[in-house]
């Protein structure tokens, strides 16, 4: 009996050690498991924020126009893009692709960059109303050629802000989880 017990204990410790190693190895390359800081996927149309926002100075809310009244910050409808691109740079192959989709009533499948788990309820409008700048969470989007995730969007990172007394932000669990 003694032997079996010892063997069991050894295997347990061994598997835990292996697990720790694997996790450790991972964390070397990533800030933490499950978070996606610096995630920068390719998009179907290489929309350039540094050009539109940085160079031409278009305001965020021009395209993400529902951010002040919705929990979601919307990806603009194609009709928003076409406001300008009916006139501007109509010969570009990417714009052509978009125009064709628009005329057919189809859409573009953008790859989601910022994603919170399903059990997190985040509300953009509440933050924007309070005067939190877009850059605080999304980083210097005006310099990004391709958008990437600037912060790790972890719970600790959220709480860090909510805990600052000057922010007067709620700290209840149901603020985000319900």
């Amino acid at each position, binding site marked *: 009996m003694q032997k079996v017990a010892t063997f069991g204990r050894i295997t347990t410790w061994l*598997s835990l050690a*292996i*697990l720790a190693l*694997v*996790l450790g190895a*991972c964390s070397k*390359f*990533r800030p933490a*498991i*499950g978070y*996606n800081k610096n*995630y920068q*996927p390719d998009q179907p149309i290489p929309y350039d924020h540094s050009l539109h926002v940085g160079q031409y100075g278009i305001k965020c809310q021009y395209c993400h126009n*529902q951010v*002040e*009244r*919705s*929990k*979601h910050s*919307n*990806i*603009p*409808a*194609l*009709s*928003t893009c076409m406001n300008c691109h009916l006139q501007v740079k109509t010969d570009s192959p990417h714009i052509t692709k978009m125009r064709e*989709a*628009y005329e057919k*009533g*189809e*859409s*573009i*499948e*953008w*790859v*989601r960059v910022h*994603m919170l*788990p*399903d*059990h997190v*309820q985040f*509300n953009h*409008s*509440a933050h924007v*109303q309070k005067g939190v700048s877009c850059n605080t969470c999304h980083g210097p989007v005006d310099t990004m050629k391709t958008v990437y995730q600037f912060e790790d969007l972890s719970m600790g990172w959220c709480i860090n802000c909510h805990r600052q007394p000057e922010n007067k932000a*709620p*700290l*209840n*669990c*149901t*603020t985000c*989880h*319900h």
Partner: protein
Amino acid sequence: MSDMNHHDHSPEIEAMKKAMRPQVETDDRYWRSLEQWGKDPEFQKMAEQEFLSSPLREEDREDGWARREFLKLMGASLALGSAGCLRRPVQKIVPYAKQPEEVTLGQALHYSSTWFDGSETFGLLVKTKEGRPIKLEGNPTHPLSAGALSARGQAMLLSCYDPDRLQGPKHNLQRQGDEKTKEGARSNAETISITWSDLDDKVKAAVSIGNTWILTGHVASPTLRQMIKDFQGSTKAQHVAWEPTSPDALAKGQEASYGTGLVPSYRFDRARVIVSVDADFLGTWLTPMAFNKQFADGRRDVVGMSELVSFDTNYSLTGANADKRFKIKPSQQLTVVMGLLHEIVVKGDMSSGLSMNPALKQTLAAYANASELLGLKDPQAISKVAQSLMKAKGESLVVAGGTAAQTEDAVLLQIAVNALNSALGNDGFTVVYGQAQVALNGSTEELMGLMAAMNEGKVNTLIIHGVNPVYFLGDAFKKALEKVETVVYTGSHMDETAIRADFVAVDHHNVEGWGDSEAVAGVYSIQQPTIRPMYDTRSVLLGFAKWSGSSSSLAKVETDFEAVRMVWKEKIINSGEKGFEDLWYDVLQKGTVGALRSQRDAVRTAKVDALVGIKPEAKSGFELVLYPTVQLGQGELANIGWLQELPDVVTKIVWDNYASISLATAEKLKVSEGDKIELDVDGLKVKIPAHIQPGLHDDVVAVSIGYGRTRSGKVGTGIGVDAYPLVLMKNKAAVFSGRSVALKALGEKYQLANVQGHHTMEGRAIVIEATLKEYLENKSAGVHKHHIFTIWPHHRYDGHKWAMSLDLNTCTGCSACVVACQSENNVPIVGKKFVLQGREMHWIRIDRYYTGEPADAEAVFQPVMCQHCDNAPCETVCPVLATVHSDEGLNEMVYNRCVGTRYCVNNCPYKVRRFNWFNYRKEMRNPEHLAFNPEVGVRVRGVMEKCTFCVQRIKSTKDSLKQQGREMKDGDIKVACQQTCPTGAIVFGDVNDPQSQVHKKFKEEPRSYALIEEFNAAPAVRYQTKIRNNNERTINPRHEEAKKGEHA
């Protein structure tokens, strides 16, 4: 092993520990089941357990691994998952091509709409998200339903997402031989898809031959009525409206008494004394939600509350709410009313409202001793009821009806009731004939005419809409259908009638198409679509337009929208000076047109000739009572799991129907709960499990209709026993009740899943009642004030402090809140097997307590949900802080932290926590998930859940107020159960706001008490005592004693 148990368990220490526990008041006058009443040791054992079986023993579910196996697998998959360090699956965002003006992502849009359930019209507000209806709520502007929505109305949404729905028009190549085919599946040899144009051509050709009949349910829609009229004009078709529970006896009674055969509307709020003879107006009779509201309005002011006396054959919801309930059998219904007539017309000499026939007094003389004839304990019972009716002369109401009163004498009963109301001067005031329920014009007589014509081969084409005659009428209708050349059916499923139709012209769901409804004469509401039709379906309005070949402008409409608009422009909206367009948009926004009349109608004189010469009938032996249930009604919505798992309002049994018999009868037959018995009704034999129902007449056998569907879909097929074959068609009327029945015990066991017994509070004093007399002497009669001592500082709530108040005096137990909560909070259903193990998931339950002896038990209802205690016992035992207290007084449950120890549920004195034993969402079939509320997480296996006070509603209201820059005021937040409650029994709000209703209920209402207050859990839910307007007895003998020996 021994060192596992090294704690000292000496008896002295145990006794000392016990003595140190707080004293809990017990109250064994209230009981929930006969097992509890009889102090059955098995029951005591079960009551002590939260869940009835170990999770490790569950093998017959697909994901029922033993826990150890699960841990092994989990360890492996964790290692695998982290080795790759992969990004989670890529998600795509697909924006609109053209932004619809009104849509803001994540913001709900509410559309006004309406739904007619075959008897009652509801004004709806349909909550949609991104073009998908996710919740139905009552429209407060509707004059009748006034914001209430029944359990069935709430659940109706799910039928839109029912996977068993037909997805396009069908053509049945074979109309027979269905018994052999498997449920749902029809082979290509039997059924093929057809295009709408082909279908229209074929139906049009059939209609053009002539001899067309239309069979519909009640048609409340003015547009559809107009469309059918138009269709009849060009095709000479005959129209029959019929539903199995049509109140045609009521209409016939009105005709015999007053000359007009319309179903009147009633005003229970105006009545100070209400006598109901089997009319379950709070449960299923005519327009129960509107009646619930009216009834509560008449009782809200306790001092002037109305009195309800019920003569009940089955134990109905109305009987359960009655101040005095008398058990009778169907053959005694007429005796009750004639007895009352004798007291009032002969003894009280009140006959001014009657066109008096001198022979009537002689007839009534035979009923002088009605109490004795009825076998009532109190020989003065009937005369006492008559006394209170006469005291409330002109402001009382006597009603009878429903299937339980649908005996062979149903029309006579109505004539007698009319005579009573006229004699008492109620006619025109509480019986409003001037604003009749015009839609309820179904006629069994006409249906039998249709069936005769079918059998004679005189019907060439039959168009069936809104009713499922093969299920309701069985073989008789099947046989008659065989003689019909072409059958067109507009149902949504391949159901009992659909497989016997040539063409199934699939209709839109209520949330997909345009329509309207006329609740009572002059009160209209409009139905708007809130989702693009999910499948290739078409509104029935267009069907009639296309098939008629008429040249009218109505028949030329291209859409249902045009049809509705056209009829409203012509008939309903009186545009006057303002243009129609403006008014139309006002109407769409408000959803309703018209109001209830406030002035009284003139008193009519009732003819009584039909009553002359009837004699009291002394029938012996068992009598059958058939009744529809609150959850399933006639049975059309049997495929909705929410309704099947909604506990019956009185018996609290789910997923089954049964024959209710009294305890004495059960002892005589030697059957116990769930044993199968055989009912023999004139040679027709039905095997059905028995349920022992307290408070039932010993000669009554009550069975609910609406069960035993053979082709309702995957959920509803084969649930329960079909009781429709027991309905007798006689003298151009349907006889539901009063038929003689023989009973035989079969010796077979069957398990009925009864939720009452689960989550019990073990006889503690939780529901508090007082009589009106006691209340008038002491406004907090029955409420025991405890001296609570604590060394713990209270929580500080500087901002809001959410709280809820529940008035037991107005709560009728209608159960609409249960389904509303289920819909709002994505609460899963678990199925009968797991309900048997105590694993139902409802966040709000309605406890039904009986009190008194089983033979004459009275009932009390009490909704219980998470009490959001300030000193929550669950919070202190959670090892992972998954349940914590918020600074607004909410007891928060954090699903993603929960590891499923279930300590909290074991420590909860109110038993309101629910555990996800399985991934119930995996059992769902596409597209049922579309009904999910995206603002509420869907819980996975191993997670505890419970009522959150609809925290998502609190949050979204706060957010929208922030945007509007406005302070919150009382009533801004309505939680789901409160929103749908017809009686306003549930009040939610901020108790820190001195102007709020809930603050007043908490601080100023003397009837207010909290559950097990002596525990000092300090719940944020307070109840108000139930007051019975029955001064003949005392409810609180203990109260006086308790006062004397008040504990320190």
